[in-house]
């Protein structure tokens, strides 16, 4: 291989085996495409994508039909056979990039191809090669020009320009004190020193693309490029591949950090909403094992000479789900409550009979807010300013919340109602008053608890989820998959009857 192919290019049979892949080191795998593909399949499986033998066989057959040297075709064809849902597709993209990036880098490191030698002419614009070598001499004006140029590229969202500029940005800002050694930290530091933010920055002059805030997608892509370039540089310095970073649950977890943006939350919730919309209908519509309608069956049997060939069923009574949602908005669940509020939002679109409450020390009904405010940001501001749920300390007081809830809705709760509590069940040492909660649960038909903490932390410290779990079904809910489990339980009444 005289020239280093771009990362993500299909492997050529010439690439030596990659023996440092995460987990099991493979004993001298045979060369060639088949072995590579199996490895890729193996890695996809490790990340939880259901790749069966039949999928791999399909992938092989597909590669015979297309020109696999074209990167896009190669990727799409593999994706069509290996990743069978949107979620899988997302993981596929990540694994695919990581896999071939590593394969290419390893080959490069082993053959001793270095950046400066082989790729000198790649970015031949004014801020080209010599700047990399004499970074310290960049004047503040030149740095400003670079900042503006990068912001421009992000605004336009052109992939090629962004890639080139990512390299320049690293050259200009990245190697100060030779970086922190942690790539994630370096990426954020570079982003900050470039002044790239997604929210508007009104202090900047007119015409600067950063003034209106940069598109989030472009910003994320740019960060990914920075990360990749930094990794490449690191591999080059050390001459070896670092251990593959498995996609942790973090990559798949619900986007919940206050720093993360709402767009991602909304993507998750949009999916949930579609699902709720149809499943809500399913419970409302008629089900298969209904009662036989004798009258209509007899009437239909006249057509067949009195033999009841065709059975007519009585349509099932529509079930009107009536939902009460209580959402903790205290500081201990700040990160999760952003997400929970969007879930509330989505639920409001799908169920007509629904009442929502938020609570910290006291409880407050926010049904009206949700019904009249479509914009998420305005909505959360309204809740923050009007709800008046924090009293003195700002710590959750579950006992008080239950007693106030009982006062508010005691007469309205009935066996057809569903109560959903979103909270971490951390009482801050106060009395959990599980007896009051039991009263609520006894009046309602079904009671669910969604806890944003991993099960591992339940009942540690001041968490008293065990006391409440006796009276309801508790779910841990901090990844999309867990949320979907819950939605299934919510939409299928017969399933929950078995568990409670």
């Amino acid at each position, binding site marked *: 291989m005289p020239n280093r192919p771009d990362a993500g290019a299909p492997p050529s049979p010439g690439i030596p085996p990659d023996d440092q892949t995460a987990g099991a080191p493979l004993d001298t795998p045979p060369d060639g495409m088949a072995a590579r593909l199996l490895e890729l399949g193996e890695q996809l499986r490790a990340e939880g994508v259901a790749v069966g033998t039949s999928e791999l066989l399909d992938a092989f057959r597909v590669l015979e039909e297309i020109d696999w040297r074209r990167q896009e075709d190669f990727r*799409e064809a593999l994706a069509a056979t290996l990743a069978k849902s949107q979620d899988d597709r997302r993981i596929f993209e990540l694994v695919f990039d990581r896999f071939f990036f590593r394969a290419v880098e390893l080959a490069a490191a082993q053959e001793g191809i270095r950046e400066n030698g082989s790729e000198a002419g790649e970015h031949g614009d004014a801020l080209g090669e010599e700047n990399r070598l004499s970074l310290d001499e960049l004047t503040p004006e030149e740095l400003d020009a670079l900042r503006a140029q990068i912001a421009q590229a992000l605004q336009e969202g052109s992939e090629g320009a962004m890639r080139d500029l990512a390299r320049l940005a690293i050259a200009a800002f990245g190697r100060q004190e030779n970086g922190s050694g942690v790539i994630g930290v370096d990426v954020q530091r570079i982003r900050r020193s470039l002044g790239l933010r997604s929210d508007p920055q009104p202090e900047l002059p007119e015409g600067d693309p950063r003034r209106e805030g940069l598109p989030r997608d472009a910003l994320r892509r740019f960060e990914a490029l920075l990360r990749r370039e930094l990794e490449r540089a690191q591999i080059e310095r050390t001459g070896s591949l670092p251990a593959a970073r498995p996609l942790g649950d973090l990559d798949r977890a619900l986007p919940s950090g206050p720093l993360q943006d709402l767009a991602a939350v909304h993507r998750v919730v949009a999916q949930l909403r579609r699902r709720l919309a*149809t499943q809500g209908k399913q419970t409302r519509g008629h089900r298969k094992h209904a009662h036989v309608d004798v009258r209509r069956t007899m009437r239909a049997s006249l057509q067949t000479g009195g033999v009841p060939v065709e059975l007519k069923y009585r349509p099932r009574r529509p079930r009107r789900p009536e939902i009460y949602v209580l959402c903790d908005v205290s500081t201990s669940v700040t990160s999760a409550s952003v997400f929970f509020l969007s879930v509330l939002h989505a639920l409001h679109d799908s169920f007509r009979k629904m009442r929502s409450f938020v609570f910290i020390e006291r409880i407050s009904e926010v049904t009206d807010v949700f019904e009249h405010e479509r914009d998420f940001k305005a909505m959360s501001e309204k809740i923050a300013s009007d709800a008046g749920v924090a009293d003195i300390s700002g710590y959750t007081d579950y006992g008080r919340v239950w007693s106030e809830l009982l006062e508010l809705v005691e007469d309205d709760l009935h066996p057809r109602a569903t109560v959903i509590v979103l909270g971490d069940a951390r009482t801050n040492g106060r009395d959990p008053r599980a007896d009051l909660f039991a009263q609520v649960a006894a009046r309602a038909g079904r009671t669910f608890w969604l806890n944003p903490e991993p099960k591992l932390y339940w009942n540690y410290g001041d968490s008293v989820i065990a006391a409440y779990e006796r009276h309801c079904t508790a779910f841990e809910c901090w990844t999309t998959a867990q949320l979907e489990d819950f939605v299934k339980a919510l939409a299928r009444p017969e399933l929950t009857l078995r568990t409670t």
Partner: protein
Amino acid sequence: MATEAPPSPTSAADVADGLRAVGYLPEEATALVAYLAAKLGKPVLVEGPAGVGKTELAKALARYLGRELVRLQCYEGLDEAKALYEWNYRKQLLRIQAEAGDKGWSDVQEDIFGEEFLLARPLMSAIASEQPVVLLIDEIDKTDQEFEAMLLEVLSDFQISIPELGRVQSKTHPVVLLTSNNSRELTEALKRRCLYLWLDYPALEHELEIVRMHTPELPETVARKLVEVIGMVRDLDLKKPPSIAESIDWARALLLLGVKDIDAQTFKETLSVIVKHRTDMDVVSERVGLKLAAVDAKPA
């Protein structure tokens, strides 16, 4: 369009050109997967939001390949009798009553379970067809899991087992498309038998091309602005974001009105073409309307 010799594509580019010729602008991935489906004889599971052209893709493929389109629209409660085949029991009863007197039981039994008494439903007719067809199983996510399980035999072996008659094997290989709005997780078994294609709202340039193709008389500038506005509207959090079909409707409406530019006024008047929920309308007219008004004010 149905030529004497139906085309047999040799590359994804062929399929892309062919689909273009029959009025469907595919993205690269779409053409590739369609090509693979035709080549490998595997069903394709097409997912995506409503109105991005999933069903249209099947129709276009049928036009391009010069095949008949057999469509099975799924709904809750769809069962074998409506999808596969059904015995025409009325005719059977008549037959029994007419002949029972002078024939033995076994004769009659043999007689009434013949092809004559079989009512073929979409899946059956797709399998039994002499000519290769394009089979569209629309909105598979609306059916029950039991129905999905029943489809497995059809999709992997292209055959249907009828207990009284034996197996009906397909004579030709149909191209099968299944569409889903992703309202429910489909079973692994079904997914394993399919290629997967996710169709999303098209990128700006691509949608512009689609709009231009359907309304070539609309001025370029108006079309571009229309697509940009649609993009803005889709970014909002709506109950029902406008689909491609709605962009095209809107383009036609604007053409009829003879609009030269989309300003705040025209937008407000024609809003109902693209947004179909009252709450959505409020959001859209507030956000996008304001933006347009701001743009209008600037050059003035």
